[in-house]
């Protein structure tokens, strides 16, 4: 039972990948790439979901997938033209399909009404155009009883010889099949027609040959139509997984002679029965057999003979954005224990793939992807962090013994240091993932928000393969969602307004990711109206967020939208306008050590730029001494550090004092006092001042005793074994092996504010 559950988990993981492929393919179609490969990839995605779902008895999912698949199949065979409208419908159908998958997974409920309406719409798209093919409609209970019915499940279990079972794709669903009787008749046109009958023996497979490869080789000679005779396949319980049962009949049109055809089979000579005859050999029976042809899972229910050249065996050519998505067969075999997170793509796939149909060479079965439990990687990263610390400690000890830098020992240590750094980098790279996993959820969001707000929006994505640490990826989704919503809801104009302004009624929202100076930058831009500065300014004044006298630059006005409680939407909508939008984004981004800003040009649109560290596992910090303790202050928060002159420190109130920094006054905060390390602060002029900026933009001058310098530190959780501590963001381990605390700058500022200056209290009581 557990095993089945594990397989199911794998299935759902694959569903996610397939849904992403589906959406990617449909988007490519929307951009005009409606060539056969793309349509086939789309079809296969839906088909594979249906096949797997059938194996698990996920009825509603199968039913919907079936309707969807039927339409896609019609598109694939050019019975239904792939008009832009149709693609939009297909995209919406893919959303519903995704809902069905989530629901089958127990993560949410499908809106039955929406699903039914969608299904009806799909059927309506399929039917009127299906007419030209005068078709014999066959209820095919045969499929139900098909001996290989359980094959998909078996494939998932990872039967070694799954590749040999050519009928993996059958599922239990009785289905209506349109047999195009004409298919066989279209035959004899011009050219030489050959009929090649191939009956592989089990030896052929044992020698690691593959029928699909042979068929593909044949297809090089000319257009082929391959049909599979699966009638010899025994019922499942009698099936010998190592045996070969299938026979192919290939109708080949070629200018080449028989020798050329025989050459294709040179390497399998003797391992298969081969018959090459000139002329037509395809009977009606063969056409029916073709229906059963399950060369790939994709091939079931194909209303015409399977054209192998277009739909080859899954293992080899499942066209996939990442090697991960290879095929159930390969995947499941090495990793029956499913992992919750899709394995990261080891090598960034070619960026160009995003635009085109993701035609990437998928590694063969030999170099397949390994799925690893993320916890193991985390553990490895911890250990390597340890190694780095240990190495630093060792170097420090050796240094203490006064060993010459040119000695063998010291040089060996240097090499060790280099090696450990390299190991650290490599290990971090394992955990790096392309931002695609976040980006691929966005097209749907854009569609939904656009339809909710009555706007027309097209999402253009760039740099999906930009890699960033897993810890960051998980936290990118929310800010991007917010920014996209904002761009559509507030940025884009309504189609009418756009037309009036002489723009394309369809707005373009661009989502891009790139690496810039050791950080990941996410840009969300729209070609809308830009920020209405006057309105933003007046609203900020009205809401009391800024003082009316304040003179602001355009840029400063643009950035007012990040103030808490700021919302320009006239009406509160589901989409945005609750006034918790951008300030929340800003805070969550800053909490990750990132920054966000906006630039806007009236009439031309706005661009949000979000920059984040590449990892949350390490942090750039300033190491300081406070009252004998070593603390790390995140570099991102530090504006500057300085040694205050006596005349710059001004007392304010009974105990407080401020620091004059150029023309402004910044409250001085003694970190040692605030954290309770000491009872009284030494004069600030004896220490060093770190001018920091909190998340809300407020500044403070933190007083420390001494600065040790800048260092990259590995972040360690305090909560894991203890709990959160006010004023401390996390901990780290320094080169000497001791724990140092990482300061939470915002908490320190607010701690200071919260605590009333102590000496004041007694006087107040006395006054009463």
């Amino acid at each position: 039972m557990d095993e089945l559950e594990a397989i199911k988990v794998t299935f759902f993981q694959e569903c996610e990948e397939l849904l992403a492929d589906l959406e990617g393919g449909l988007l490519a179609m929307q951009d005009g790439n409606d060539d056969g490969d793309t349509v086939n990839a789309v079809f296969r995605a839906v088909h594979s979901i249906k096949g797997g779902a059938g194996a698990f008895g996920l009825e509603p999912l199968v039913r919907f997938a079936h309707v969807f698949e039927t339409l896609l199949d019609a598109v694939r065979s050019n019975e239904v033209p792939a008009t832009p409208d149709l693609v939009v419908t297909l995209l919406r159908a893919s959303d519903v399909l995704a809902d069905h998958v989530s629901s089958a997974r127990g993560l949410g409920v499908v809106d039955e009404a929406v699903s039914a309406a969608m299904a009806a719409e799909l059927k309506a798209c399929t039917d009127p155009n299906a007419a030209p093919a005068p078709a014999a409609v066959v209820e095919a209970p045969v499929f139900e009883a098909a001996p290989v019915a359980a094959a998909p499940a078996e494939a998932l279990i990872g039967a070694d010889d799954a590749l040999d079972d050519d009928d993996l794709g059958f599922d239990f669903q009785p289905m209506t099949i349109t047999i195009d009787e004409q298919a066989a008749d279209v035959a004899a046109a011009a050219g030489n027609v050959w009929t090649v009958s191939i009956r592989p023996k089990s030896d052929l497979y044992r020698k690691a040959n593959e029928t699909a490869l042979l068929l593909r080789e044949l297809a090089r000679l000319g257009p082929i139509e391959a049909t599979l005779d699966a009638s010899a396949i025994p019922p499942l319980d009698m099936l010998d997984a190592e045996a070969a049962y299938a026979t192919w009949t290939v109708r080949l049109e070629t200018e080449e002679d028989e020798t050329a055809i025989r050459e294709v089979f040179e390497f399998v000579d003797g391992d298969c029965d081969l018959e090459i005859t000139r002329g037509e050999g395809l009977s009606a029976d063969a056409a029916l057999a073709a229906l059963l042809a399950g060369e790939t899972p994709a091939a079931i229910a194909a209303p015409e003979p399977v054209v192998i050249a277009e739909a080859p065996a899954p293992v080899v050519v499942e066209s996939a954005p990442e090697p991960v998505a290879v095929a159930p067969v390969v995947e499941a075999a090495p990793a029956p224990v499913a992992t919750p997170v899709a394995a990261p793509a080891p090598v960034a796939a070619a960026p160009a793939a995003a635009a085109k149909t993701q035609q990437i060479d998928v590694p063969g079965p030999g170099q397949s992807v390994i799925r690893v439990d993320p916890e193991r990687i985390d553990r490895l990263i911890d250990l390597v962090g340890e190694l780095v610390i240990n190495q630093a400690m060792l170097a420090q000890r050796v240094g203490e013994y006064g060993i010459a830098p040119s000695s063998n020992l010291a040089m060996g240590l240097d090499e060790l240091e280099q090696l450990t750094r390299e190991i650290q980098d490599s290990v971090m790279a394992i955990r790096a993932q392309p931002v695609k996993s976040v980006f691929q959820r966005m097209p749907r969001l854009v569609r939904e928000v656009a339809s909710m707000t009555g706007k027309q929006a097209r999402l253009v994505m760039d740099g999906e393969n930009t890699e960033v640490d897993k810890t960051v990826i998980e936290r990118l989704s929310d800010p991007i969602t917010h920014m996209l919503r904002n761009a559509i809801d507030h940025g884009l104009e309504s189609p009418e307004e756009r037309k009036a302004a002489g723009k394309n009624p369809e707005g373009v929202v661009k989502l891009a990711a790139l690496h810039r100076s050791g950080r990941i930058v996410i840009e969300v831009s729209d070609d809308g109206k830009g920020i209405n500065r006057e309105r933003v300014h007046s609203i900020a004044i009205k809401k009391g967020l800024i003082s009316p006298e304040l003179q602001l630059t355009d840029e400063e006005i643009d950035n007012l939208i990040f103030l808490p409680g700021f919302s320009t939407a006239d009406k509160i909508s589901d989409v945005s306008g609750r006034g918790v939008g951008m300030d929340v984004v800003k805070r969550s981004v800053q909490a990750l050590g990132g920054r966000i800003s906006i630039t806007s040009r009236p009439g031309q649109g706005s661009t949000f730029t979000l920059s984040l560290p590449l990892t949350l596992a390490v942090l750039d910090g300033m190491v300081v001494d406070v009252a004998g303790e070593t603390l790390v202050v995140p570099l991102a928060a530090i504006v500057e550090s300085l040694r205050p002159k006596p005349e710059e420190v001004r007392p304010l109130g009974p105990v407080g004092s401020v620091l004059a920094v150029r023309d402004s006054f910044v409250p001085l905060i003694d970190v040692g006092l605030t954290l309770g390390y000491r009872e009284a602060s030494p004069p600030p002029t004896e220490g060093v001042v770190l001018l920091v900026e909190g998340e809300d933009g407020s500044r403070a001058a933190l007083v420390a005793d001494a600065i040790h310098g800048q260092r990259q530190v590995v972040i360690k959780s305090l909560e894991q074994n203890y709990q959160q501590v006010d004023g401390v963001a996390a901990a780290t381990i320094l080169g000497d092996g001791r724990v140092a605390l990482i300061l939470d700058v915002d908490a320190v500022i607010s701690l200071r504010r919260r605590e009333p200056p102590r000496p004041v209290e007694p006087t107040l009581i006395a006054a009463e």
Partner: protein
Amino acid sequence: MSEEIITTGAERRELISFRVGEQEYCVDIMAVREIRGWSPATTLPQSPGYMRGVINLRGAVLPIMDLACRLGMPVIEPTVRSVFIVVKAGDRMIGMLVDAVSDILSITDDLVQPTPDLACDAVRSFIRGIISIEGRMISEISLDRLLPEREALAA
């Protein structure tokens, strides 16, 4: 887990006993991960007095608790014989600073007597029971209550 061990009756189990001041305490050996010599801890701000701070335990940040202080006794002044007993309490690991480890006891549960009423509440909530063995009185520590609740202090 350890609750179950108690209810299973006459099964033998092993305890590690240690000294805190002049008194003897013990914990179930299954909860003990390791015993380490004293090393200075990094002070944690805003934390109760019995929290000595945190140390680096092979890459993990381990909180150190002064057991004497937690039990309401004077703070332990670390000496060369002072050790941390690293124990697993719930899903957290903590180091208990104690004066010295004494020995390993093998007992059956019928040796465990309920904590006498005279002890103050703080002590009673941390002591699961008292074991009398070879004329010594050894109190068994209840680990689950030693660390403050996460939420309680985070607020």
